[in-house]
């Protein structure tokens, strides 16, 4: 597994916590412990995403991430449904 894949897996793991806490908070909106956890994971996630995007290009589009570099990096392979584990970085 390459460094890119590892970072993406880390992002996935933390984002999963935010997805799950988000659904929990939808039906428990006054649970302070869950709220704090949600904020903590969100902060970690934002830091990891910007690290990923600096190195490997944007994770999302439509104005939610800066395009770094001299070409439109959004179109770069691999897309999520492709078996990205064998993709080598250039």
């Amino acid at each position: 597994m390459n460094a890119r894949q590892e970072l993406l897996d880390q992002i996935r793991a933390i984002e999963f916590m935010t997805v799950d806490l988000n659904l929990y908070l939808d039906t428990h909106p006054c649970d302070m412990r869950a709220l704090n956890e949600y904020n903590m994971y969100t902060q970690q996630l934002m830091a990891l995403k910007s690290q990923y995007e600096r190195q490997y290009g944007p994770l999302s589009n439509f104005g939610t991430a800066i395009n770094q570099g001299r070409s439109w990096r959004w179109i770069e392979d691999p897309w999520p449904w492709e078996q990205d584990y064998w993709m080598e970085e250039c």
Partner: protein
Amino acid sequence: MWIYEKKLEYPVRIKNPNPKMAKYIITQYGGPDGELAASLRYLSQRYHMPIPEAKAALNDIGTEELAHFEMVGAMVYQLMKGASVEEIKEADAGGYFADHDSGVYPSTGTGVPFTAAYIQSKGDPIADLHENLAAEQKARATYENLIKLADDPDVIEPLRFLRAREIVHFQRFGEVLEKIEEYLNSKKYF
């Protein structure tokens, strides 16, 4: 508005093509208890939910189901990719191949195309929540059947993840139903 994120919710990395398994799994893409149906069901029902918790839960679970729709599509894509015509014939997936080659098309494993008739949006939050509780259990049962049919850990792991999410969604919908009932009782509304 939706923003796309260029990653799967849970990784799908299937190394060995298996058209037979693709044919089984595709029902969770476009079948009656599949992820497309789930997503459309919740995202359509959310408009007439009476309380904030219910609107949020239907909106957000409907959104997560779209991520599952993408995962199942990725599984079908990877299972079909690189399979030879011989393997496809052997897997009895020739009918699918004739219509779609190795393309990903929302249908059941037996070729019935997706239809909105799989879902209801009743305009009645109690009726809709009961449908959703049943839908999550049916999806869970389908994933359990698929896990029994699979022998490749690359396939089983994402199926287990999806199965676990159905259980969480069922739990959340149960809480939503309780809150709606409380709300309706407090309004003395029959």
